């Protein structure tokens, strides 16, 4: 069994660690690129959203490298992502790719449904080994988040342009290369030290923007046209409403690791704007926006793939939140276009607006 999975930001780092600890052979798909997108949009249904197309491209490219099994997460409420695994499997079968799918999704009747699937992936490993492997993967996810948070802080303040991204790349590589749970603490220390070495101007005025929206486009830089990097260059310190470990906790552990995921807090904050589940993470998007607004963030940016229904609902509510809290929001819709100029123009205008407003507020 040679296992692959879809890319979503740095997810491949903890997932590879988890699977390899179980003795599973892993084929990491090449990073999502224009080729991935071209393959995905060629074979995917036209009206499906960007995540499906990129998933599909990832699987085809991984299959070219010898993968024969796909592990992916499945449904969460009435968002289309819930049946993407089935659709993708059918498309790949029609194309002649022999890929077996193992879909991890909330059990319909009993936890044993999920456990059977895990058992299938884990082969002969004992349950104790499985728990150890999950813990190792999860700790890598936490380390990745720490590193990425550090990059979000230093990017708008870096003295040498590009130095943050250079350090980020090397730091993530170190976490990736830690082969055993024993090696991880040292790798983490070293990686964080590397991030701290980025020369920053601590007195530089920065704007604070919270990014909310659909999870895949939030976490996958290729899908959001490297939004965080562009904002950093414009002097914006970004906070993301969800990080990898939060996602893993909510979707794969179903919130077992307490105190990490903020889904519940966000859903509470979404009232009175949106009191109902509207599919996907529409309600969380509203709640996170309210939380950012309450914390005094200068602005909120929402990202989602074109045709994402839950986020369209949220989009229409955001102006009310902006008005009530005196903040500003900008919505960016991601699709096949890879030209970044249009997005940069909007981001520049948005940061100009926020900066001017901040100046006038501070002058008073």
């Amino acid at each position: 069994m040679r296992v692959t999975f879809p890319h979503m930001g740095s997810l491949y780092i903890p997932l590879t660690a988890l699977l390899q600890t179980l003795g599973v052979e892993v084929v990491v798909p090449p990073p999502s690129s224009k080729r991935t997108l071209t393959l995905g949009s060629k074979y995917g249904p036209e009206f499906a959203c960007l995540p499906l197309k990129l998933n599909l491209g990832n699987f085809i490219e991984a299959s070219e490298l010898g993968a024969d099994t796909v592990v992916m997460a499945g449904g969460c409420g009435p968002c289309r992502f819930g049946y993407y695994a089935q659709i993708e499997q059918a498309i790949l079968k029609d194309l002649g790719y022999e890929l077996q799918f193992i879909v991890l999704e909330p059990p319909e009747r009993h936890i044993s449904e999920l456990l059977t699937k895990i058992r299938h992936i884990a082969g002969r490993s004992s349950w104790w080994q499985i728990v150890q492997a999950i813990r190792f993967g999860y700790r890598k996810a936490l380390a990745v988040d720490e590193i990425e948070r550090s990059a979000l802080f230093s990017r708008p303040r870096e003295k040498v342009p590009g130095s943050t991204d250079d350090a980020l790349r090397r730091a993530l590589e170190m976490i990736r290369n830690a082969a055993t749970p024993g090696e991880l603490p040292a790798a983490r220390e070293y990686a964080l030290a590397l991030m701290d070495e980025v020369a920053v101007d601590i007195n530089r005025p920065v704007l604070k923007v919270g990014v909310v929206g659909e999870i895949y486009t939030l976490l996958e830089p290729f899908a959001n046209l490297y939004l965080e990097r562009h904002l950093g260059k414009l002097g914006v310190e970004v906070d993301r409403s969800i990080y990898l470990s939060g996602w893993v906790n909510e979707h794969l552990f179903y919130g077992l690791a307490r105190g990490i995921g903020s889904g519940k807090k966000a859903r509470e904050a979404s009232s009175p704007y949106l009191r109902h589940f509207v599919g996907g993470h529409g309600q969380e998007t509203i709640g996170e926006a309210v939380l950012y607004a309450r914390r005094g963030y200068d602005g909120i940016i929402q990202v989602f793939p074109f045709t994402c229904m839950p986020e369209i609902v949220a989009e229409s509510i955001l102006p009310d939140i902006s008005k009530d809290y005196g903040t500003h929001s900008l919505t960016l819709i991601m699709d096949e276009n890879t030209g970044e100029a249009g997005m940069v123009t909007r981001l520049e205008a948005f940061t100009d607006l926020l900066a001017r407003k901040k100046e006038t507020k501070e002058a008073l």
Partner: protein
Amino acid sequence: MIGYLGIDVGSVSTNLVFFDDCGVIRKSIYLRTRGKPIDTVQKGLKELGANLPSGTKVRGVGTTGSGRHLTGVIVGADAVKNEITAHAVASSLLVPGVQSILEIGGQDSKIIILRNGVVSDFAMNTVCAAGTGSFLDQQAGRLGIPIEKFGELALQARSPVRIAGRCAVFAESDMIHKQQMGCSLPDILAGLCDALVRNYLNNVGKGKEILAPVVFQGGVAANAGMVRAFEKALDLKVQVPSYFDVMGAVGAALLAREAVARKGASSFKGFEVADMDYQTGSFECSGCPNLCEVVEVSENDRVIARWGDRCSKWSNAVGAKIS
């Protein structure tokens, strides 16, 4: 004479504006970009240089529009700013107290809301180009009327027909259908203006509060039919400033004045750039799996700028040597 230069390089047109120390616009030039931004900017500079009295000093230069970065390195800009900020700055100067700006250009349309002289909200068309200048241009061409006559004809309408405005393709088939039924040309044109305004207000305006004074600018503001359609839909007076078609350039020049006041001296390379030789090209970097498309601009065979690389390896290395 001393003054400031603003250059707006858009998808359809390239505009240059020169205004003097007292804020009076001395010269404005409107050219078609025709896919050749560098040539057009050089042509514009040549024309501008020839039209200004000898001994004119350019104290600062600003660029805006989708070609702002490219133009910025070529002329040595002091300010390189997005079109939204540039348009807002220009309107605030020419129409004091403006609260809403409607802007429709060749490929994009935007709305800018100002309160107390500061931009408080803005939006730009996202996935749809219905209702922008290019579509009007194309329809005028199909009907065989010069675009300059479009507005005048639309004003002669007695009862505008209903045209679907949500999508350029729907609009065109609706127009053809009404033509075949025998509706008069002015009625169809006026109907199209109404449809485009409806589309703009829904798709770009999206319920934003449009308060007077309202300014309409960008190339499409030349179309009197569109101005009337806006007034009808908003029930407000819509002003078209005299430099409506070069407002982006005016804003860029104003931003250049601000920038030069902050940094002291201008980086303008002079009108000579009109005669220099510029080359652009791109290559794919194979340093990592991102495979970035790096664009390189050279002046007289010397590389002066690079962009497109995510890691800044190439852009940081301009002037230095890359091993």
